[in-house]
């Protein structure tokens, strides 16, 4: 393919400017000395200090992280199990289950959110009217329903990243392990899991990202019992956002940037090492 000319390079550059202009604005105004989000009035760190005093935002941050981590753990385990199960099914049942698995991914978020909200409200109502009133317990939408919703939309991503790895696996090695006397569990742990581990890890990261980033589904399923960061931000945008949010997003941006940089430098190194190994192998042959 031919190389890029000036025009193409300029196009790429402009796209980057478009993507980063608002983020730059957010970051710059997190250091602004006044509440204004358009007029610069001098450098200050006061929004960062205020942020660490704001219990609402900090609580929401904790909830977000708790939900994302818990949802990631549960969905990675359930999703990996399901992927192995799907993989060992016959074609037809697998196709049907995969189609259902794709529903939360292809449906608009608002529909997933609304439908889960109906389920939770319906279930809570039915429980409160019967068993709940009997024992004087009342369930409401909150942390638990939020967690259930997050697990529901996270699992499909785990399955989609584990299944291709299972496809790449050589079925003979697992059989070999079992022929050599390994129990199925041991064969899974020592032989299959190392093979699919990149897929499982990738799925976990995807699940975590989806959870951290979600607003719409959380908004409909958390009721008034729990609040994530995105919900807190949304509540603030309806009044007037405090620049604390700018400070928070700047911090999050730096964290994500660092994480991505570390992960990518590591994978770049691994790729290089793998290329080297391959070259060596080829020489030997």
């Amino acid at each position, binding site marked *: 393919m031919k190389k890029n000319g000036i025009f193409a390079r300029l*196009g790429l550059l402009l796209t980057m400017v478009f993507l980063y202009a608002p983020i730059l604005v957010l970051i710059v105004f997190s250091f602004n000395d006044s509440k204004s989000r358009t007029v610069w009035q001098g450098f200050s760190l006061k929004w960062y200090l205020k942020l660490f005093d704001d219990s609402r935002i900090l609580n929401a941050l904790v909830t977000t992280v708790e939900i994302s981590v818990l949802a990631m753990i549960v969905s990675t385990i359930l999703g990996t199990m399901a992927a192995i*199960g799907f993989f060992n099914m016959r074609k037809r049942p697998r196709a049907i289950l995969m189609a259902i698995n794709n529903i939360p991914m292809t449906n*608009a978020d608002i529909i997933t959110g609304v439908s889960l909200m109906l389920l939770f409200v319906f279930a809570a109502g039915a429980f409160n009217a019967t068993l709940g009133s009997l024992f004087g317990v009342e369930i409401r939408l909150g942390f638990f329903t939020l967690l259930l919703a997050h697990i529901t939309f996270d699992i499909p991503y785990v399955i989609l990243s584990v299944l291709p790895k299972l496809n790449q696996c050589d079925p003979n090695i697992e059989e070999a392990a079992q022929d050599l006397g390994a129990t199925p569990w041991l064969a899974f742990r020592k032989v299959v899991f190392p093979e699919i581990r990149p897929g499982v890890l990738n799925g976990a990261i995807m699940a975590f990202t989806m959870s*951290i980033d979600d607003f719409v589904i959380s908004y409909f399923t958390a009721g008034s019992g729990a609040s994530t960061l995105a919900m807190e931000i949304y509540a603030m945008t309806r009044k007037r956002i405090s620049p604390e949010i700018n400070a928070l997003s700047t911090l999050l*941006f730096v964290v994500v940037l660092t994480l991505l940089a570390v992960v990518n430098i590591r994978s770049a190194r691994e790729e290089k090492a793998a290329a080297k190994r391959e070259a060596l192998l080829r020489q030997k042959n």
Partner: protein
Amino acid sequence: MKKKYLAIPYVGWMAIFVIVPLILVVGYALINRDGQVTLDNFRTMTQYLGAFTTSFRLAIIATVICLVIGYPVSLWLAREGAAVKRIAMIAIMLPMWMNFLLRTYAWMSLLENTGIINTLLKNIGLFDLINRVFGTQLSYFPMINTPGAVVLGMVYNYLPFMILPIYTVIDKIDPKVIEAAEDLGAPPVMVFRKVIFPLSLPGVLSGITMVFIPAVSTFAISKLLGGGMTLLLGDLIEMQFYGSAYNPYLGSAISLVMMVIVLICMAVMNHFGEGEGEAVYF
């Protein structure tokens, strides 16, 4: 124990948290407040026809703009070296990790009447120039609270969803195929039309899906950038569940109709796309 049974917990999970909720949506759409079966919800919906057309119109515009920007960007990216590709990919994905409400909010500061873009244009004397030439009394460009701002917000938030699949597909095209076309004397435009574009079609289709669906159902973007002036389907649904207009039955009916229309659009597009792909292939 057979390994396929490992899927049982998740199959149960899907039944409860994917299938039952959708059945509930259908059920709620078909009843009224008193629990009677009725089609009234669908009849009431006709008064919101405007929200349907606005939503689909804005989402289609945003999807087309994303495609027009995203396709060349993906093509150019695929031509860069490995290092540039890697960095550009991170750069494109990074904003996706920041909450979209924050990014949309940042556009408010840029687009406001006294916002950063208008201040900048004022300071370079653009408005003075225009006023002198045309005799107008312009002191800012109205950008925020317009449908255009909503489209901008959609394009900004969903552009990465267009670039990523198209780029992935183009990047995987075997360079030998392109070289073969060139060796056989195809000029660049023909190489693109006959080789690169048909091969990139699957990426284009998934890009369109990934942009169009969130765009047509968005509700926060229109609230922030449209100032509530443009009522979209997402806003309408949200109002039925959380707003003063509390009416989950109507909300379910609107959700159902939106879901069906989107599904039909996607099916038609995929069918059409397959036909195109085949027509060029054979």
